[in-house]
């Protein structure tokens, strides 16, 4: 485990932030404050190509692949490892819903969404997990669903906790849910993380801060939606996702693209 301090990491984050351009919509893959990235990023810019036929299509998933109950992470039984359990997971029950859109603003319908997350204590069910927080026998933290005709998705889960990691001394990740998404085209494939509003760890986290533009970072924040909150049952969060597999100048779209 690294002995770099949060102060060192924060100073590096700040030094990069002042050089950052306003149009950087994606994380920098070359982002040394996230130590594991140092040897795992390409040094060359990606090569620009016109998509070929196979890249203009995306894999299909169907109700053969995904059972509707897999969208409820609080029932425990679907993920295989907890098939005996019938209890409720501990934590703040939430629903997370939103729409998946492509780069032209069209709904991504009937497409696969996969999620995974820590439990309420900040612990993952994973063999390499070392955080000595309790496992929850009623929670695997894994879900799937297919988007509806309008691109909508919906999960019921519990709010994950923040957890410590080895990037530097006293490093903690803001609470998040991992999302894996497919679009209408192969090039729209996305894996990302959804965060919760107001987390005090945002400024300290090199993974979140690797997105150098505040507006782009904000796109990963769910919003609390009281209309989605179910009385005597669960809190509600809303988060929309836009998948774009195309290079574009985001600030000034060409007339022909409108």
């Amino acid at each position, binding site marked *: 485990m690294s002995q770099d301090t949060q102060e060192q990491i924060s100073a590096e984050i700040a030094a990069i932030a002042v050089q950052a351009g306003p149009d950087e919509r*994606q*994380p*920098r*893959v070359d982002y040394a404050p*996230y130590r594991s*990235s*140092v*040897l*795992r*990023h*390409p*040094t*060359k810019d*990606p*090569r*620009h*190509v*016109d*998509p*070929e*036929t*196979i*890249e203009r299509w*995306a*894999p*299909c*998933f*169907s*109700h*053969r*692949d995904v059972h509707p109950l897999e969208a409820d992470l609080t029932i425990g039984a679907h*993920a295989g490892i907890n098939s005996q359990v019938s209890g409720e997971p501990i934590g703040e029950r939430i629903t997370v819903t939103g729409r998946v859109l492509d*780069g032209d603003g069209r709904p991504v319908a009937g497409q696969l969404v*996969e*999620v*995974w997350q*820590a439990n309420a204590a900040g612990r*993952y069910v*994973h063999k390499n997990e070392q955080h000595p927080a309790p496992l929850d026998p009623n929670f695997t933290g*894994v879900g799937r669903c297919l988007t509806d005709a309008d691109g909508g998705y919906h999960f019921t889960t519990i709010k994950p906790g923040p957890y410590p990691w080895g990037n530097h001394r006293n490093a903690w990740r803001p609470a998040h849910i*991992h999302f*894996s998404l497919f679009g209408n085209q*192969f*090039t729209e*494939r*996305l*894996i990302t*993380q959804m965060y919760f509003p107001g987390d005090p760890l945002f400024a300290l986290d090199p*993974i979140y801060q690797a997105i150098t533009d505040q*507006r*782009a970072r904000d*796109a*990963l924040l769910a919003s609390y939606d009281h209309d989605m909150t179910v009385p005597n049952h669960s809190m509600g969060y809303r988060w929309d*996702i*836009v*998948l*774009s597999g*195309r290079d574009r100048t*985001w600030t000034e779209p060409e007339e022909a693209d*409108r």
Partner: protein
Amino acid sequence: MSHPLPTPGQTIGPFYGQALPYDGDDELVPAGRADAIRLHGDVLDGDGTPIPDAMVEIWQADAAGRVPQAGGSIHRDGWTFTGFGRCSTDATGHYSFSTVLPGATDDGKAPFFAVTVFARGLLDKLLTRIYLPGHEANAADALLSSLPAEEAATLVAVTDAQGLRFDIRLQGERETVFLTHG
């Protein structure tokens, strides 16, 4: 209509193993079927060290060049070719698929496997292509022919005894050419 701003990517992290892999994820066709080939290789970092927590996905046409549009990649029936596969690297940084060679989707076009790479430490996905070694259409391919020979070589698999070998180098000498699409 204006284009909505795209949602940024984030790293897959270390803990996807309970969520994303599934039984049969790397068998687009059953291993051992007469026309099955193995597509495999290492995912390597800038020091040439294998990456044991990477995930590779492939998306491809069938042997006749048709684009599959059938579900069933997660619960495979052994007969339907869905064109999609997923493989987490093992403890030695190796991935391996059982599949078929993709056919050309358009007359005269070079067939390839479309590839996505994720890893802990990699802040966003990477996209690339695996072309077939010695294919007659490679010479006229717009991407391959636009690259210096040593870079083009990073996109072409090598034939081995079981099929095709393709190493993915995230950084350093012989760094794989990654793509962005316009």
